[in-house]
Structure formats: structure tokens, C-alpha cells
């Protein structure tokens, strides 16, 4: 087991002529909740996709628990994408079987308990579920694993405040405390209270990586306020 969980050295990802990540250097340890913060298009989703092996770096090095993305890293990463990834033909029970078959760290008992609390029956078909129920089920599956690294891509975007609370509570009460949770979002105020560290991304580069305590002490402001300062855009016709 490597001491560092995530190591990025001069990590670059380009889509054709467009550069999404322009030389990211990042070192993240274990047992932390880390916020990956940045405006839309700053490279958050690209970094997460590289970590979970959906994309390959254009150049630079990327290691998760000391290994390049592959079968091993996929077995220790629990990934929540920013979309629904279920097959329509399955029911809830099929999905639990699927996760149990492929992930050794999946706790079926935990997942069944959470499903019952949400009123999802094993025979319920995915096709007939509402968008909100599907999102919650996906979160239940991801958080029922005792993973080393949880990659949560915009888990609270586009949901109402009550659902937001449910999502944050589910994450906090279920994650493996020896593992690290990396949450990407631009809704900082809602998750600031739970973060240990933050990584600010702008135009594909890390502009700040610090602990939340340190930011509060040195700046005397909340992370949300610091974010607004860093990413402030002057509207057309406005003044500096």
C-alpha cells in the first residue's frame, strides 16, 4: 500500500487542440474528504475520468495507490459519474447482484438496508423509477463499497436542498474512513463544512491545494468566499 493515494505529476490531457488539463501536480493522502473545486470547464470531470480510467493521459504521470489506472485501481475506486449509468432492463436486485459479482468490497447488507430506507424494493424496475430515485440508488451502490478512493462527480448538482442533505449524509455516514473521498462541485457552501482539503482548478491547472483549516486561518474567510475571489469574473460593462 503506497503512502500517497493519488499522485499526479505534470498530468496533461488534451482533446485534439483543446487542452483540458495543462500540467497538474497533485498529491493526495488517505482518510480525507477533499473538495475538487472550480467553475464549469475547469477540468474537474476530466481529472476524475483520468483517475477512474475512462480516459488516458496525453502525457505526465498518474498513480492511484502507487499503480497506473488499470484493473487494480478500478477495484479500489468507487465512482459516481455525473449521469445515470444503469441498464434499463435491470431491476434493483439485478444491480445489487451485479455490484456483488464485480466488487469484493461491496456490502450487500448495507445496500439492501439503504434501499429499504429509501422505499426501493428489490423487484423494482429501473425503467419505472423516477430520476431522483435512480440518482439515490446509484449513490447507495457507490457508497455501499468499502473503497480506498471515492470519486464523486457533481453529486449535488441539480437536486433540491432536501436531496442535497440526503446525499451528503449518505456519503458521510457510509464512506470507508481509511479511504479518501474526492468530491467535485461548484456548490461549495453546501459541502464546505465536511471538507478536510480543497483543490482549486482553473483552466486545467491547480491554482491552490490546501487544508480548509489553513485557508480559514490565513485568509480569515470561508472557502466559499476564497473561491469567489479566485474565480471572480468581471461582467461586461462592469468595473474592477
Amino acid at each position, binding site marked *: 500500500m503506497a503512502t500517497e493515494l493519488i499522485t499526479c505529476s505534470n498530468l496533461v490531457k488534451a482533446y*485534439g487542440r483543446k487542452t483540458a488539463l495543462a500540467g497538474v501536480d497533485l498529491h493526495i493522502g488517505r482518510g480525507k474528504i477533499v473538495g475538487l473545486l472550480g467553475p464549469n470547464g475547469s477540468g474537474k470531470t476530466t481529472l476524475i475520468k483520468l483517475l*477512474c*480510467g*475512462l*480516459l*488516458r493521459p496525453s502525457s505526465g504521470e498518474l498513480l492511484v495507490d502507487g499503480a497506473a489506472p488499470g*484493473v*487494480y485501481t*478500478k*477495484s479500489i*475506486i468507487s*465512482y459516481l*459519474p455525473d*449521469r*445515470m*449509468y*444503469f*441498464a434499463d*432492463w*435491470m431491476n434493483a436486485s*439485478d444491480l445489487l447482484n*451485479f455490484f456483488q*459479482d*464485480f*466488487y469484493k468490497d461491496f456490502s450487500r447488507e448495507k445496500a439492501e438496508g439503504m434501499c429499504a430506507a429509501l422505499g426501493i424494493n428489490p423487484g423494482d424496475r429501473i425503467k419505472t423509477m423516477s430520476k431522483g430515485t435512480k440518482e439515490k440508488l446509484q449513490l447507495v451502490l457507490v457508497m455501499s463499497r468499502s473503497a480506498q478512493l471515492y470519486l464523486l462527480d457533481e453529486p449535488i448538482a441539480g437536486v433540491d436542498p432536501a436531496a442535497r442533505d440526503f446525499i451528503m449524509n449518505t456519503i458521510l455516514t457510509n464512506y470507508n474512513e481509511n479511504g479518501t473521498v474526492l468530491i467535485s462541485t461548484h456548490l461549495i457552501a453546501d459541502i464546505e463544512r465536511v471538507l478536510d482539503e480543497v483543490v482549486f482548478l482553473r483552466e486545467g491547472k491547480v491554482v491552490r491545494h490546501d487544508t480548509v483549516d489553513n485557508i480559514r486561518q490565513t485568509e480569515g474567510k470561508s472557502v466559499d468566499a476564497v473561491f469567489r475571489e479566485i474565480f471572480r469574473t468581471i461582467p461586461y460593462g462592469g468595473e474592477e
Partner: protein
Amino acid sequence: MLGKLMKYDLKSMFKSFTPLWLALLAVSAVNRFLVFRNDARFANGVSAFVSIFLYGSLCIAVVVVTIVLIIRRFYSGLLKDEGYLMFTLPVKTWQLVASKCLSATIITLLSMIAGLLSVFILVPGIQWHQLFEAISKYARFITGDMVLSGVLLLLLVLFTVIKSVTYIYTSLALGHLASKHRVGWSVAAFIGINVVLTTLGTNLVTLFSKEFPNVRWDFFPNSVSDIPATNGCLLALIGITLVQVVIFFFATERILAKHLNLE
């Protein structure tokens, strides 16, 4: 892991195909009683035409639906949103492709069997006992070469199915590299590959005929003594098909492993 992947791929395919196969067999049974109520009417030219037309339509329906569903399972199962689940599973890319390919092959073979069964149901008057009697009567004339021909023919059918499936996958994998109009690009890739293969095939045959003018391509034996030559041709065809399977499979695997481009 391949077994586990196949379990879910087959399960999803059976959900779509079982009703299709049952419908095919049911339609055949209904038509048998509606169209051919007795053998005498079957002898009538019009009825015979109707029977061929019906069988043809049913076959076309099964073939079209099989192809469409095989494309859909690969396209939406790996290259659309479901890809976010499948490509983050702790499995190798080749296992994902192999699982889809083997499941599609099994389904295609089962569709063929269902098609064959439907003919037996649709066409009345097949005297099974006479058929078996005839087979046993001529069994002593069957040589080892003839058995080999049968086995080679079945293998050729099997590998041709696998080749067609992997050919479709390669076209879809190439099409998914585009940022827009992915289906259109997949069709273009399908046609492009066909043009390349046809050109290559024609040139190779011409070259081969020039180099070896004495070799005869005996696909249809005129006598028992021709059968070994036919088997040689079948073996060559199987070899050519296998080479294509290997190329298509690894092309698909490499594209998805190195250049995965989910929306």
C-alpha cells in the same frame, strides 16, 4: 470475470430475444393452420408461393431484429452512458469486448435455430420417419471426408457469424471516435472497411491465380473424389475468416482501450 460479464450480457439479450423467438414460432404455427390446412392445397402453386413469401419475411424479420439488437447492445452497453459503469469495472477491455461478442454469437446461432424450427413448424408434410429412414439407408455411403465437410461447414458458419459481429463492433468503435454524428461515422466506417476488404480480396485472388494456376477452387464437388479438394477450400475460407476475426477483435479492443471517448 468473462463469465460474470457474459452472464449479464446474455441475460439482457435473452430479455429482448425470447419474445422475438416465441413470436416467430407462434406466427409459424398460426400460419401453418391458416395457410396449409391440408397437404393437397400445399401442392397448389399459389400456396407454395405464399409459403415461401411468409418464410422469407419471417427470416428477414429475425435477421434484421438480430442485427439491430446486437448493434444496440454494443452501442448503448459500452459506448453510451452504460459505458461509465462497464469501463470502470475491474476487468480488462478485451473481456468487455469478448463478452459482448460471444453473447452476440450465441444469440445469432439461437436465432438461426429458431428460424430453422419455424420452417419445420410452418411447412407441413415433413415425413420425419421417412427422412430418418433415408439417412440410415445412405449412412454406409458416408465417408470420413463427408463428415469432415459437414464439420468444416458448421465451423465456417460459426466463424462467419463471429466475423460479422466483430466487423460491426470495429465500425462502431471507429465511429465513436468522432465528436459528432457518431452513428453516421460508424456507417461510413462499415462501408469503408467493406471497400478495403473487397479490393484486397480481389487483388489477392488475382495474385493467387497467377502464382498457382493449377489450383482449382472446388466449392461444389461433382463426385466423391472431389470432396477432399472441397474440404481444402473450406479450410482456406475458415482460415481467411479467422484472420479477419482476429484483426477486427483486436482493432476494437485497442480503440476502446487506448482511445475511449464516451460522450
